[in-house]
């Protein structure tokens, strides 16, 4: 009797998370598991994977995500470098204020960011109109097509603008933690700011930098709104393709959509695992260096 009471008491504590657990199980994991289950229909899987539409979409998605993540990596490392330069001279209070400013794009949803860039960059957009008014082009259509074109410039722009602050947010505490004394010591030995950044700061933030880049990459790979809004009719990214198949009246497409989702999950997991294992060794490396 007592044992049961104890057990009940124990269970009661954990009962609180039951609603969220059930919710996650039903809404989230059920979807993922269903997608994976659908992939075991090998005939359907083969049919989808070898269809031209799917191959073109996969290539397009991977290429677009790769360029996007490279641009995010580039923009964010510049941002981090600037913050690092500022952190040398500015007090922590001021630095935090600046940080809030740099985080501004994070507060805007992706779909709005996408819409914003289409307003700014399109042929009848803000930049194009300014250039036209200034007389650099004679016709609005002379302005290069940056929105809804196959190379996805505006998609890459949007991600660079929207995702870089996230990386900076993740990495920023590590920059603050860098001991000011180290900098002084480095100065004594005649080490420049850039050299210090390359040899000390960058290796320190590297593991976090890479893993946050991966989070962003996983998001970009499977995200829908931005390529839907700014992409072209053909080729489409995998998620847009899956959505368009889903948004039909017919139920027979559901299996196809589940398989596509399964494939997106599979690719993301695969890349995640590669990064995780290579990153682990990276992290161990930095820790060793710190101990020295």
């Amino acid at each position, binding site marked *: 009797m007592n044992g049961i009471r104890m057990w009940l008491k124990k269970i009661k504590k954990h009962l609180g998370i039951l609603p969220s657990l059930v919710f996650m199980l039903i809404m989230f994991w059920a979807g993922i598991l269903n997608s994976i289950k659908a992939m075991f229909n090998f005939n359907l899987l083969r049919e989808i994977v070898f269809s031209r539409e799917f191959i073109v979409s996969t290539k397009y998605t991977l290429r677009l995500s790769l360029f996007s993540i490279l641009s995010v990596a580039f923009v964010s490392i510049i941002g981090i470098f600037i913050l690092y330069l500022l952190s040398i001279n500015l007090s922590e209070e001021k630095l935090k204020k600046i940080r809030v400013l740099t985080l501004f794009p994070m507060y805007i949803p992706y779909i709005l960011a996408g819409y914003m860039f289409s307003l700014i960059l*399109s042929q009848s*957009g803000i930049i194009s109109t300014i250039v036209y008014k200034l007389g650099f082009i004679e016709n*609005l259509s002379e302005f290069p097509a940056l929105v809804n*074109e196959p190379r996805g410039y505006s998609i890459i722009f949007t991600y660079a603008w929207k995702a870089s602050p996230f990386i900076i947010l993740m990495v920023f505490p590590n920059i603050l933690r860098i001991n000011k004394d180290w900098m002084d010591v480095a100065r004594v030995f005649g080490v420049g700011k850039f050299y210090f950044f390359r040899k000390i700061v960058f290796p320190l933030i590297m593991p976090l930098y890479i893993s946050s880049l991966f989070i962003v990459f996983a998001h970009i790979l499977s995200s829908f709104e931005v390529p839907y809004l700014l992409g*072209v*009719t*053909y080729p489409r990214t995998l998620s847009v393709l899956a959505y368009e198949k889903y948004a039909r009246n017919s139920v027979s497409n559901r299996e196809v959509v589940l398989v596509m989702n399964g494939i997106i999950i599979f690719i993301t997991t695969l890349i995640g695992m590669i990064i995780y294992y290579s990153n682990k060794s990276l992290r161990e490396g930095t820790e060793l260096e710190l101990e020295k």
Partner: protein
Amino acid sequence: MKKLVFLILSLVILLSCGKKLEQKDVFSMSWDEIKANAKGQEVSITMWGGSKEINLYFDNFIAPNLKEKYGVNLRRVPVTDIREATNKMLVEAKAKGKAGSVDVIWLNGENFHFVKNNDLLLGDINSILPNINNVDKIALASDFGEPVEGLEAPLGQANFIMISNIKNPPTNTKALKEWLKNNKGRFTYPNSNDFVGNAFIRTIAVDILGRTDFQVEDMKPVWDYFNEIKPYLWREGKTYPESSERLSDLFSSGEVDFTMSYAPSIVENKVATGEFPKGTSAFVFDVGSFTNNHYLTIAKNTKNPEASLVFINYMLSEEAQSEKLKSSVWGDGSVLRSLQKVYFEPQLEELGPKITEDIKDEWNKNVAQKN
């Protein structure tokens, strides 16, 4: 023991709940009798509640007038998806002899197909309504390919229209091609997954094939036409707007000279707000404008068939329809012949759902993916 008795008792009480249905046979009554019986009854309308304008139209115009003229109280039951209500009707119909919660319901297309085939409707109400005689005949024939058979009365109409601000716009495929050759990059249409883009493709198909009973296999000449005009489209046809709203954006910002829609009131509204340039007007292709209707119908197990009939009949009156037509109120097309505008003629009946679905894939395969 006490608890058990209480449980059983409450179950019995619960089960006996729900009003007994004492429905009179309205089909044997005269219209005057129906009107007399309707007085003092309450009628509910189950409808999509997502539009402020539409809700206000029912609350501020229809409800007070109905009360004043016929002594009928109108209660609006908003739902987010009419399928919720039709599923409920199916469940309630299983409780025979009990009154259901739905009186009048607003629907069309596949939802009508669902309630009709599950035998959830009162019957041939159109044979009773006096105002049905003024209604457009096409609206009474079929609802997205499903024969109406008098089971539902049309409330409003949507027309597929082309919108432009140029003078003498091309109204057939030949003229369109000529115009495109002289005005490169000034025209495009939403892709086939969009409801409106799909209607444009169907219109072109009807024009080229010269008939409406075609299958997707017959559409080779149509795809040829689209591929021929492709180099002259906006962005040389490398991409298409994903929705008609996006096309309207392009039109407002002056990138193209045409847009298209299923809601004719959009022209007046957007010219008024300045989004569309002045001089913008609607036109239709020579082959016609795809027309579909939305309907009101009465549930089989309604408590108030008389009030429901009076309500629907009032909705078909010139007063209710002309108010609804005002773009400041709702801007929904009228089903009365006297109020229909001439430029939406000739009307084309909607093709079935199968061809619409097939076009989505085939257009992608044969037009979008060809370079």
